[in-house]
């Protein structure tokens, strides 16, 4: 049986340059628990945005999503809030790394971002390299194999633990 590589659901749409202090304020970095962090995700934007985040499965954004700090919790707080994928025009490099390394699907697909409406349904298939929005399908470059294995293991640490275990079994 092949593993499903599609994630999706309701979208919450943001603009350009959403920074890490807005995604998860520095005062909450005393935690690494996804559920605890999720309570404060996007807190600077107010409770209405936070509520919509919890009802969504895909974060959609413009350019440079996750710019700013190297804080890994910017990714884990979204996972804790039930987000399975982020579709953006572009990512800051540290956010992109942190997403892959914590098992959060992050794809750059500007055409899809144009087509997605706030509250609409989105499906991301990272093996096929497609984002489906209504009747439209948009493509993006699939992950290099080395990154895909990390993502599918649930992140860098689970990947390394699995590798170490496999090594011991020899």
């Amino acid at each position, binding site marked *: 049986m092949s593993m499903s590589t599609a994630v999706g659901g309701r979208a919450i749409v943001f603009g350009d340059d959403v920074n890490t202090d807005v995604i998860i304020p520095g005062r909450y970095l005393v935690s690494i628990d996804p559920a605890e962090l999720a309570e404060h995700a996007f807190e600077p934007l107010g409770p209405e945005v936070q509520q919509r985040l919890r009802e969504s499965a895909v974060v959609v954004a413009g350019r440079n999503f996750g710019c700013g700090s190297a804080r*890994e919790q910017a990714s884990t707080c979204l996972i804790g809030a039930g987000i399975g994928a982020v579709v953006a025009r572009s990512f800051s*490099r540290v956010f992109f790394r942190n997403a892959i390394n914590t098992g959060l699907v992050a794809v750059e697909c500007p055409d899809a971002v144009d087509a997605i409406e706030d509250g609409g349904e989105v499906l991301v298939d990272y093996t096929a390299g497609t984002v489906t929005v209504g009747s439209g399908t948009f493509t993006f470059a699939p992950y290099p194999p080395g990154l895909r294995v990390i993502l599918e293991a649930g992140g860098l640490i689970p990947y390394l633990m699995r590798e170490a275990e496999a090594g011991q079994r020899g």
Partner: protein
Amino acid sequence: MGRTFAQKALERASGEKDLVPGQIVDAFPDLYMSHTASWRCIRTLERMGWPELYDVDRIAMVMDHIAPADNAKTAGYHALCRDFAQRSGVRKFFDVNAGIAHVVLMERGLVKPGEVIIGTDSHSTIYGALGAFGTGVGFSEITATWVTGKLWMKVPESIRVEVDGPLARGTYAKDVMLRLIGDIGADGATYCSVEFHGSYVEAMSVSERMTLCNLAMEMGAKNAFVPPDATTRAYLDEAGADPASYEVLLPDPDAEYRQVERVDGRSLVAQVAVPHTVDNVVPVTEVAGTKVDQVFIGSCANAKYDDLAIAADVLAGKTVAPGVRLIVTPASSRIMAKAASDGIVSTLLAAGATITNPGCGACAGVGGAMADGEVTFSTANRNFQGRMGSYHSRIYLGSPATAAATAVRGVISDPQELLA
């Protein structure tokens, strides 16, 4: 085709040849920096079942973001780090008294040309000031590197920035960078290696080069670079770095750049980044007169010795405007000691400044928080909403001279008007 600095640095760290931009390689970094986030790395190592460390001498820990501890929880994290460092033999451990990680490691000779250095801090680009390849990563990546010694890295394209000087009076490295970030945008250098060249860069001190490389992060850079020269060598000698322990890597004259940017320092005026993004940059004259409640001179961008000296020059014999709080947080204990011994600290105190212990301080949201509706003028590198206290406060960014002038007047001011 010639190679850029980034190509050479990643070839050295990966052992591979003829790397081209876009390739993904396993790099073996020379140094793994973790700051107050070290506790997260230790917890992650615990989750992995305490595997053996690849090379404990490549681990550097600096307790800077929350220093000293502000409550029992963070005190517990600090205790965890101290205990781990002692048990595991981490010799490059610096406690809450040392200062900001980047500056502490550089002034102690632990950052050297040609090295690849990863850090749990986005401003790790600063190591380029000494000709090293520094880049920020998440804490899981630091933990993974503790264990495996390696990390996947994409070979970046490079941007060449030419800065010609001398700079106009009242302008500094911070103004150069704010202008550049304003011009190319917060994502103008995303995933790129940014090399700084030109007559002004060659004439700069290492401290000023730190400001350039630090702020390169705010246009999305993966790393930054200033070619090492006699100035670098003198700094490294004083810091105690053995010349035999490093190899200077320079880009080839015919290296390929994605783009070339030029900043003419001679016609520059003081620049200010206005809320809430770092690329929202205007000449100081456009926001002059804006009332502030607080001025913060601190952070890895601008709280080094010369930054404090510049602020003291502006503040000498004057006082901070009534109702304005001036907070000065030296970047390191060594900088603070020097500033104390040559009178800078007393000048600042006489002007009415609050001087805190070295570290990240208010830039990381610890001390110096703002109430609803307040405004801070800061020398740090970020003005994001809510970064310093209330989500309904505002942060403006500029040079230490502009900050000091603003503290004296109580409104955002062009430092030219106060410089003797």
